[in-house]
């Protein structure tokens, strides 16, 4: 935690502010070719993201295990369509590949939308805003300290927190030192993405992105449809093998005839419980208008003995579901494709002032909304310490480090109710900013599957590692500059 000493910042003494604090250490090659080209805002975005297609696609520096997730889904579904569908169509009904196809497409689309959508990143405060907040803090402290010299008996708020009353419930807003602002309620700072995310649920390495306000509905639809798909494939494969083994031929014979089914069976068997459980957990969260983050920390469960209730819950399951899933889609607040103000306008006082003409303003507004940019905005993130906290302690024991296992395994059987352990580990999460991919991947494999060479074969441990790196390498070679 940074020290709480601060200085009064006089906004008039500030150097010409730019929209982004960090220096531009990555020179983009395009700028060298065309020194006068106006730069887009994604080129100076301070978070740990990379951008492609001139800001249309946003990814994190490492793509997490999204390739693994995609691989598992594609492989399992592919095997299903190749090995099981022909037999089942012949012996049962031709609806089976149709239903399977619809579910598969649904799962894929919602997965990509979850991964590539801006989860609700809050742009960092402009220098003027930061200065204004510093003044506010100074005022608050002087009010608290001013009346009592010793400071012992007067109420001292903890440094840099603000309390607001939301529906008669006191909520503490914390100050984010990176983004230089008081975080709105339910907002949390993701250390891997280095962004504050609104209505932060958790960072999911399977999806390679934070799950927040804007992409929670995609995430929820993804896990629900994935549970249907997994259960459907599992049922079909079981039926297929049962039909083949009929007539005294035996299961071994059936497996020999259709080896792909064996692979599917194993993958689905181990996935279906965790994914079904995850869907159930998130259904509970949606119905009570909670985020995973709040549930883990026990923000509204009254652990501290106070009479606390969730101020965001409407006390009605249907209304809660609608306010989480059916609320109008909020816009993306980071304007990736907007242009930076030119130097001339910066000299009038601040680059932040919207003096530009109406045309530029409307362009910025249109860019901000990014209707077309939804699916194009990828926000894959590296593995993280505060990732899917549904990870189980049982799985943690199988891994050398407990917190990475907990953090990196979102799909273990949480139904056994290990929330208490989650709380203790989640507090340690922030001290583990990153995990190596290999470590957490190992944990995930151990957590999710019994080590079994039969199904390790299609999912080669090295390929997901290699793939993102090669992808990253190929993207780096592209003309668009990755950030940081």
């Amino acid at each position: 935690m940074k020290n709480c000493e601060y200085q009064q910042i006089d906004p008039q003494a500030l150097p010409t502010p730019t929209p982004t604090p960090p220096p531009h250490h990555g020179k983009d090659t395009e700028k060298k070719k065309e020194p006068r080209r106006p730069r887009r805002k994604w080129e100076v975005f301070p978070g740990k993201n990379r951008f492609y297609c001139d800001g249309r696609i946003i990814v994190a520096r490492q793509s997490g295990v999204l390739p693994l997730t995609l691989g598992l889904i594609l492989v399992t579904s592919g095997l299903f369509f190749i090995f099981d569908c022909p037999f089942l169509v012949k012996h049962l009904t031709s609806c089976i590949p149709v239903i399977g196809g619809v579910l598969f497409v649904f799962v894929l689309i919602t997965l990509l939308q979850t991964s590539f959508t801006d989860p609700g990143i809050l742009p960092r405060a402009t220098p003027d805003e930061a200065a204004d907040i510093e003044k506010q803090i100074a005022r608050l402290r002087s009010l608290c300290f001013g009346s009592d010299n010793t400071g012992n008996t007067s109420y001292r708020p903890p440094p840099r927190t603000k309390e607001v009353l939301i529906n008669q419930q006191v909520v503490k807003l914390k100050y984010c030192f990176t983004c230089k602002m008081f975080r709105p309620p339910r907002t949390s700072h993701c250390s891997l993405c280095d962004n504050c995310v609104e209505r932060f649920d958790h960072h999911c390495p399977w999806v390679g992105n934070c799950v927040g306000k804007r992409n929670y509905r995609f995430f929820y639809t993804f896990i629900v449809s994935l549970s249907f798909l997994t259960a459907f494939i599992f049922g079909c494969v079981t039926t297929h093998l049962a039909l083949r083994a009929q007539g005294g031929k035996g299961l071994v014979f059936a497996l020999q005839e259709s080896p792909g089914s064996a692979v599917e069976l194993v993958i689905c068997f181990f996935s279906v419980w965790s994914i079904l459980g995850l869907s159930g957990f998130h259904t509970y969260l949606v119905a009570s208008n909670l985020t995973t983050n709040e549930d883990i920390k026990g923000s509204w469960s009254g652990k501290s003995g106070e009479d606390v209730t969730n101020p965001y819950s409407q006390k009605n399951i249907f209304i809660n579901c609608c306010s989480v899933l059916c609320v109008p889609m909020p816009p993306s607040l980071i304007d990736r494709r907007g242009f930076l103000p030119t130097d001339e306008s910066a000299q009038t006082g601040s680059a932040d002032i919207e003096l530009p003409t109406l045309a530029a303003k409307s362009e910025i507004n249109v860019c901000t909304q990014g209707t077309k940019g939804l699916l194009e905005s990828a926000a894959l993130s590296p593995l993280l310490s505060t990732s899917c906290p549904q990870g189980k302690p049982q799985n943690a024991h199988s891994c050398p480090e407990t917190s990475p296992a907990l953090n990196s395994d979102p799909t273990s059987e949480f139904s056994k109710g290990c929330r208490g352990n989650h709380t203790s580990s989640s507090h340690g999460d922030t001290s583990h900013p990153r995990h190596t991919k290999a470590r957490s991947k190992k944990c995930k494999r151990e957590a999710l599957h019994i080590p079994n060479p039969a199904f390790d074969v299609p999912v080669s441990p090295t390929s997901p590692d290699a793939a993102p790196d090669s992808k990253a390498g190929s993207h780096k070679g592209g003309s668009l500059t990755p950030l940081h």
Partner: protein
Amino acid sequence: MFHNLQELRHSASLANKVFIQRDYSEGTTCKFQTKFPSELESRIERTLFEDTVKTLNNYYAEAEKIGGQSYLEGCLACATAYLIFLCMETRYEKVLKKIAKYIQEQNEKIYAPRGLLITDPIERGMRVIEISIYEDRGSSGSSSGSSSVSGSTAR
């Protein structure tokens, strides 16, 4: 007195900025505080300012409203795997355009003549309404603006 936005840009220099913070008393819905900042006391009438903020709050409430129509839209969007968001402008985006137009209009009619400029909250991540206070750069006329504005920085 500044008569339009262009004059503001050319003949004035930025003196100060006032930030209207969010009002979270009703939850995380977008709503700004209507408390009149003291820095603007000498610049604009309280009622005008409050009207502007209240209208903006109403716009945001309209954008985020949950009702029969939003349930239907949500179900339809889910049924299409949310691909519909790629094809259609969302309700929020439509309202944001209206807001941008409204702010532009308010700036032209009310705020620029008083040496003030409102920045659309969407450009500040919906955290604040930033009001820039300008003072006349060197014209012989209104010097009253500068003295009252420079006084407001020392608080």
